[in-house]
């Protein structure tokens, strides 16, 4: 028992899994490859009665049931995406922590890039606008301003 657990750990370390878990000892599958797949899938499934936790992290009984369900489906030979589809068919898209990319979530997934581009455009426009406006020194003085300047400077031999 200890050796296979060690194998699982090594495999998990190899997969770079983040170590946040509520998996109990009796849930761990004997086949390390399947177990690793189960952990990966569980990490992206939401525990629906908890507040914003994956079933991999949550200690709730429902999370445990869902973890066992995932492992059942994997043992029955489902592929990763089939397991996920099965869960979605049962519980709706709410169970997915990573929202699917479709028309409904286009704004969500597109937002970062769109905002970045919008920001770049905004900066570009303000730069253009600033360079288009002539610098103050190039704008000629109006007649009234010139007279005022002459009055302040006083009449000088070299003229103003």
């Amino acid at each position: 028992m200890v050796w296979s657990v060690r194998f699982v750990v090594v495999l998990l370390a190899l997969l770079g899994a983040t170590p946040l878990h509520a998996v109990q000892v009796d849930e761990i599958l004997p086949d390390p490859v399947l177990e690793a797949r189960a952990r990966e899938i569980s990490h992206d499934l939401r525990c629906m009665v908890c507040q914003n936790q994956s079933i991999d992290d949550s200690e709730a009984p429902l999370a445990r049931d869902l973890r066992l369900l995932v492992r059942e489906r994997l043992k029955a030979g489902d592929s990763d995406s089939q397991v996920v589809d099965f869960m979605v068919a049962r519980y709706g898209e709410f169970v997915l922590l990573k929202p699917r990319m479709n028309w409904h979530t286009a704004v969500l997934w597109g937002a970062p890039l769109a905002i970045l581009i919008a920001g770049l455009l905004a900066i570009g426009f303000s730069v253009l606008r600033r360079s288009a406006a002539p610098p103050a020194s190039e704008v000629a003085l109006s007649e009234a301003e010139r007279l005022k300047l002459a009055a302040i400077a006083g009449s000088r031999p070299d003229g103003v």
Partner: protein
Amino acid sequence: MIAELGHYALVLALALALVQSWSPVVGARKGDVALMKLADSTALAQFAFVALAFAALTYCYVTSDFSVVNVYENSHSQMPLIYKLTSVWGNHEGSMLLWVLILAIFGALVALFGANLPAPLKANVLAVQSWIASAFYLFILLTSNPFRRLAEVPAEGRDLNPILQDFGLAVHPPMLYLGYVGFSIAFSFAVAALIEGRIDAAWARWVRPWTLLAWMCLTLGIAMGSYWAYYELGWGGFWFWDPVENASLMPWLAGTALLHSAVVMEKRNSLKVWTILLAIITFSLSLIGTFLVRSGVLTSVHTFSSDPARGLFILVILMVFIGGSLALFAWRAPLLKQGGLFAPISRESALVFNNLFLATACATVFVGTLYPLVLEMLTGEKISVGAPFFNLTFGPLFVPLLIAVPFGPLLAWKRGDLYGVAQRLLAACAVAMVGLAAIFAFEGTQSVLAPFGIGLALFVMGGAVTDIAERVDLRSMSIETIGRRAAGLPRSAWGTAVAHFALGVTLMGLVSASTWGSERIIALKPAQTVSISGYDLSFDGMVSRDGPNYRETAAHFTVRKAGSVIGVMEPSKRVFPSRDGMSTNEAALLTRGVSQLYLSLGDKNADGSIAVRLYHKPLVLLIWLGALVMALGGALSLSDRRLRIGAPKPAARIVAQPAE
């Protein structure tokens, strides 16, 4: 009686705030000095009364006065004193009182230290502060009154939520609120400037230090919250992209952008409009965060209260302040004169680039957090947006930002030489490459991203070192020159370098803990051993203890490395009888340098063995250490001579040398 005093003090504070809301504005318009000065007195008096109210509530907690509803629901006579004190803000009503207390403190500080601000500006700033204050005093008095009494006094209280009975509660909320509410000063200044239609040098001087102070506190508050979640929640995670966590991250990101924008404004008198907009946005995000936590709109481990009436009230406050300030901005911003120009490659443009990415990251978090809510409102569809989404979108945004961080401080103002800067950063780049190659060599190709993460972290750290090295002219190789220049270097330069260095440190901790952590989940009987990463933990047996208000069962583990004992770990479960037997899981931590062993207790099995979860987390403490050092950098910058406004430097006395 004390509670009633506190209640009345709060009402008086409201009255003062209402007076302060209009008289300084009128005074500023008409140039009436007496009306403007009135704001100073009312701000100080407001602080005195709110402090009185807070003290009254604290007194009720300390004396375990269970006739006050708030104390009954959140306290227990057997609780240790420190928890009695911290449970004052461990609930919705008390934490709102803390919120307005800090708001009043900041208002009083402006009144006290604003001697060299132009009187109309000061008056307007204090007026805006009191608008915010009035709104929240009303909120407290009408919907969240902490001083309500019970007709029949219960014998014992219902105890504070056991998860909150921790030192973290003493640090996390006050620090967070100092941050959130601290940004109100920047907001008040921004709105005051828009009202006046003018920004002058005093304004620029003022915004930066106050923003810096708020930012420092928010950094520490978020870091403390993250560390607390890490050791308290029992499974070693430290950031969950929970809506409430996001609600604190967004003001932090906007506040960082504001800080950098304020730097440009102070130095070069440009980006004024952007600074004002960021000041408004940052505080608006603070307000939105307040709304999210208390309205029941989003589910989270964190939510205080889910009363729709409160939610509605705050929503109205949000609409008035955010909508009003943005409308004012749209109307008045064009009046503000444009500042200095700068070339496309310059420190200003680097900071604009920095702000662009920070703002985009902030907007991403904003969209991700509120999307499920909006989608459900519009289409009735329920989706979740969790960690995977944020990891995919937020992470990539930070990569270009972090690459640019070493370049920024080295570029010149107005017109910079990118090629020259790149040459100066070659050493830092080399260090990064060596690190990257070393990770590849030692750890193999387990994770493709980790070597790049470490390389980037090393680059950022190297860039900060290069910044200082260039300023002290390290290349001159002369101890005298270096020493002289180092001594004369302004503290804000040190602060910048330290803070940027810390950014690399945090990144290193993040990459390391996520990639190279290892885990064991195993059932153990007494005298059995479990090994991880070269450490051997042997289970010695269970121990039962009694705490002040709980019963504890702990598992005693001896930790050995290469045969010799290096420590003891006792993860435990605590049961609180006063809270219907609610139990908490206390993980055991053993710190080795900046790495940690993390041991968490599971359930007892039928055959007498107990399940444990054991983790080894290399370099994990760097994450929070980095945040601490970042705040330290901020403190260094804050203590810079030129930011202590009105402190003239005495001229150096020239001692005449006798002629030889």
